[in-house]
């Protein structure tokens, strides 16, 4: 069997050129933030919810590396634990919307029946609801927390992934290797899932990386306005909200640090996502 649709990424590019220097730096930053969050129970110097009213709004010191918030809680520990909730939400949304969107995109891009047409109309309708708005509607129904926005964001991002997949599928369908499989009599599902899908994964993965940044920012914003993660659970968005009083009193650090982390991670992920889609998805446009 020599007729294999190899993944272009692996065929033409070595991993060394996958990202530029800036891209690798962004990847390292992301990795460090993720590791600190995942290992928070092991690494965090303090209990993130431990209130110490004797050291309120303390600046950075040997005991508290990044200082303390208005309740004397250790900011470094809270940032680490906050990463767990702040990163988990976007991860679920991106994973679910990528898998669902890709499968629906493959199905609707490959066939042209009435099911495809109905799904396409549903996608069109969903494009009319911005992700943040649909999340707010979901929160109004299901109540505050992470569950409603995760559900709504997943629904919002599925059409974007599906549309991208459709475009890729239509281009892929015309390629000789697909024709060859057909002539050889391979079953359609096997060709689509086994041979076409792997060719699309890098491009879709690059777009999903970008989506991760958007979802993270939106979920943090929801926590910030008090509709997402509820205090005292540490979450970057909720931490910024809690620090507003201190901020107006001139204590910048408790609000600035989580804000910086959000920007840092969103910038890093955007850089990675854009470099990936430029280098992998370049053939699309």
């Amino acid at each position, binding site marked *: 069997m020599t007729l294999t649709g190899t993944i272009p990424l692996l065929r033409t590019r070595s991993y060394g050129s996958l990202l530029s220097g800036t891209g690798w730096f962004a990847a390292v930053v992301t990795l460090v933030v993720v590791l600190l969050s995942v290992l928070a129970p092991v690494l965090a110097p303090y209990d993130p919810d431990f209130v110490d009213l004797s050291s309120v709004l303390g600046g950075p010191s040997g005991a508290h590396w990044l200082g303390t918030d208005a309740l004397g809680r250790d900011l470094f520990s809270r940032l680490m634990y906050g990463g767990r909730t702040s990163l988990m939400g976007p991860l679920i949304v991106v994973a679910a919307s990528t898998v669902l969107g890709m499968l629906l995109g493959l199905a609707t891009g490959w066939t042209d029946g009435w099911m495809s047409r109905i799904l396409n109309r549903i996608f069109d309708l969903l494009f009319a609801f911005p992700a943040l708005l649909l999340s707010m*509607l979901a929160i109004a129904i299901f109540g505050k927390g992470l569950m409603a926005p995760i559900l709504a964001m997943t629904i919002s991002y599925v059409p974007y992934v599906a549309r991208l997949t459709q475009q890729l599928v239509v281009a892929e369908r015309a390629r000789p290797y697909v024709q060859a499989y057909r002539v050889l009599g391979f079953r359609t599902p096997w060709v689509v899932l086994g041979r076409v899908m792997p060719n699309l994964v890098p491009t879709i993965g690059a777009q999903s990386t970008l989506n991760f940044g958007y979802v993270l920012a939106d979920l943090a914003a929801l926590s910030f306005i*008090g509709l997402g993660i509820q205090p005292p659970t540490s979450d970057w968005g909720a931490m*910024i909200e809690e620090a507003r009083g201190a901020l107006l009193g001139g204590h910048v650090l408790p609000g600035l640090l989580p804000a910086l982390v959000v920007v840092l991670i969103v910038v890093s992920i955007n850089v990675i996502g854009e470099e990936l889609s430029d280098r992998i998805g370049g053939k699309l446009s």
Partner: protein
Amino acid sequence: MAVTELAAPPARPTPGRKKSPATSLIVLALRKVGTLLITLFFASLVVFFSRFVLPGDPARFLLRGRSPKPEALVEITKQFGLDKPPIEQYLTWVGGILHGDWGRSLTYRQSVSDVLLNRLPVTLELAALAAVFITVLGLAAGILASLNKGGWDRFILITVTAAGAIPPFVAAIALTALFAVQLGWFPSFGSGDEGLGRLWHLTLPALALGLTFIAFMARVTRSSMNEQLTREHVEVATSRGLKRSSVVFRHVLRNALGPILTVSGVLIAGLLVSSAIVEQTFGLTGIGQLLVQSIDRLDFAVVQAIVMIVVTAFVLANTIVDLIQPLIDPRIAAGTESR
């Protein structure tokens, strides 16, 4: 599935008879408006029937977070027509919206449309000011970057990439910390009075709201201009000795407007949605803040109304953009029948 079926090329609409550009423009407009109405119809179904995904007594759902007396349950059942079949409830709701009756707010104990009308001006002013910032700063940065290769281009590109990744709520906090708390140039809270006071109060919120979009606009403008600058017609115009400014504005910018306009539809929608967060942060009494408060206070009639308004504005903005496109580039209207 048969092989021949799979191999069939994607269906193409058969080209129609040649029509005059004006006719095709009208056809295009009618089709866009049709799509708009259909989308709005389905969106209203989603907004209305969303509360039916929860099982249980709808009267108790609408009165969540309160401890309703039996009379209150009867009252709300009557007010929302909850004892009627869902389809009839929907028709009543849509009919009411079309007649300007948006239901009653539970928290304000007045009609939703009155509450909305009080709140709408601030949001519109905020969005308008942000739109001005986006257009002026975004276009200027993009044009500047595309006309000055090298240092300026790199500097603007890096700044814009960083600024584009700052979510509105982070921008709001950062701007408050710097310009309201440290420097004390602008107020950090409230909508202010009419006129200049309002403008002064809205400057920071509008900047926070517009920052990502300014960056976005700058990037689109830059790449769109760059694409045009390499075209032959620009070279011809330059070699004919036209003034640089004339070449840039009449030959490059006009042709570069297409992609810029396309993204503005998305921008307007983004502005309205993000204004919820910015208004809440700066304590502006617009419909964005009302949306957040109404979710918080479980005032579902208001939530439904605002979601519907934002969706309508979004779809409308995109339709208008689609309709302006052919006026800037007549090829688009002509292209509707050959494609």
